[in-house]
């Protein structure tokens, strides 16, 4: 598209360099996953072989059997789904209303409130983890689904509001004005007219929220210490004891944990990247 692109592409030597650079880039990004996948189908003695084998001599699904039938991973998978799904719903609901308010109304203190929401995204979570723990303990929400769902709104809501506000702002107002003349109420307009037009923005927010919660580690470590609510990131650590790590199990569990995120992301990549970069490049 740009002149920088076309000029380099014209020279054959440069094209070769470009291809090599692209291959190196792909290798750097994918090698750890390839090694993870290969390690997950090796038997334990083969994992602990010096020098390591590139390909497994006897590929096995034993590690996956361990993960699925002989560990808590299935339960943690379920917990992760419930917590990530619940947190996504809560954040989306709050973000839809808030971003509509920010995108369509003028009122006193709006700039200040927008700044407050943005600052929420920038806060160091480590600095508020102690009082959050005390607050949740006081509310009897430690080791509950609701506890994690609530704290996850801290890390998802600000960026969701930000992404959705810039999306809604680009939807033309005329449709809404026509509906207002026809006597539709504010909520009716939001749900019947604005939201159907905002589906791509909403999908981007949903993917962002779900993936963020699915991957989150520190809050889960502190607020979910019981097996009934532990999530996958915490479960991964259970394959390691102080003296021994079941690397085959860890790698198989990592595959199980990574697959949904990568699939979800690749499926909606265009929407997600568009939503994320829109705000940063408009200026």
């Amino acid at each position, binding site marked *: 598209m740009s002149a920088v692109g076309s000029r380099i592409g014209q020279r054959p030597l440069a094209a070769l360099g470009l291809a090599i650079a692209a291959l190196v880039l792909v290798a750097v990004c994918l090698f*750890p996953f390839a090694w993870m996948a290969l390690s997950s189908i090796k038997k334990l003695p083969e994992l602990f072989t010096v020098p*390591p084998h590139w390909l497994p001599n006897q590929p096995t699904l034993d590690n996956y059997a361990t993960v699925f039938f002989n560990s808590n991973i299935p339960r943690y998978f379920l917990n992760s789904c419930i917590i990530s799904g619940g947190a996504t719903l809560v954040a989306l609901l*709050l973000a839809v209303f808030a971003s509509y308010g920010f995108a369509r109304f003028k009122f006193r203190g709006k700039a200040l409130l927008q700044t407050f929401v943005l600052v929420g995204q920038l806060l160091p979570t480590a600095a508020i983890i102690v009082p959050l723990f005390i607050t949740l303990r006081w509310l009897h929400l430690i080791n509950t689904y609701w506890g994690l769902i609530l704290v996850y709104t801290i890390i998802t809501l600000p960026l969701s509001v930000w992404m959705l506000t810039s999306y809604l702002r680009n939807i033309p107002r005329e449709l809404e004005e026509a509906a207002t003349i026809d006597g539709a109420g504010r909520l009716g307009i939001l749900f019947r007219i604005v939201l159907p037009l905002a589906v791509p923005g909403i999908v981007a927010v949903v993917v962002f929220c779900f993936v963020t919660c699915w991957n989150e580690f520190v809050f889960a470590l502190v607020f979910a210490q019981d097996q009934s609510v532990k999530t996958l990131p915490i479960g991964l650590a259970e394959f390691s004891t102080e003296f021994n790590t079941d690397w085959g199990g860890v790698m198989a569990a990592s595959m199980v944990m990574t697959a949904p995120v990568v699939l979800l992301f690749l499926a909606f990549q265009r929407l997600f990247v568009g939503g*994320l970069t829109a705000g940063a490049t408009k200026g």
Partner: protein
Amino acid sequence: MHRPSPGLLFILPAIVVLFLLIAFPIVYTLYLSAVDNHGAFTLKNYANVLRPYVTRQAFGNLIYYVGGSIVFQVLLGTLTAILLNQKFPGRGVVRSIVLIPWVVPGIVAATTWAWMFHTEFGIINYMLAGAHVIPGPIGWLTDKDTVMPVLIAINVWKLFPFVAIMVLAGLQAIPGELYEAAKIDGATFWEEVRYITIPQVRPVLVAVTLLLVIWGLNAITLIYAITQGGPAGLSLITPIQIYQLAFTSFQFNEAAALSVLFFIVAAIVVAVYIKVIPPSAEATE
């Protein structure tokens, strides 16, 4: 007007939730940091936290970790963006693949790299020794000279894709007319880079860099999962120190004091961020 604006009503639920979960804990941390176990006012918590060498060590490590990571994240991310902005076959696929390290769970990246850097059975020692780059196996994650650089390298691998997509979006937003005009004026390739590309992408780079600083200050997952701050505190960073003070030693008041100090440092960074980046998209439109 005595009735509140409908806009305010739409925003209220989100603001209330954020206020309860962010503003309240901050105030409560301040209180906790300034009282003893019996609720009496004291500054001892601050003194107890500031005195030991480990606090300075953790803060120094944090600066080293964040600074070292950012230099390479921005450098590699920008180079990647420039590469992905060129035309070559398979560009769409490569763009998707590059994002994967950023999307995968941090804990998965941590365990996979820990396995690859394993002293005895790790593939990295095997490859490097095989290529005669190193004479024998290195204890990457247990050696005092290598542990931080290795953690920084893993962090760079995880986050340079984010820089790449943001800078790529910035590159694509540059109007083609600018290059055409430059071409008519007889500008060379490097003049285009110097006078068009860099100034146009600069705002994105500034925004991304500051976001990386904030995320870096927050980064617990990688280091906690790989070394837990070891060996001997050499990779301990302040957020992990706060976590350990609170949930391993159960010194909630001292953890709160350290949180406040840490918070002040982070707040300065956030203030810079808001000063440089206009807070609302409206202002930039």
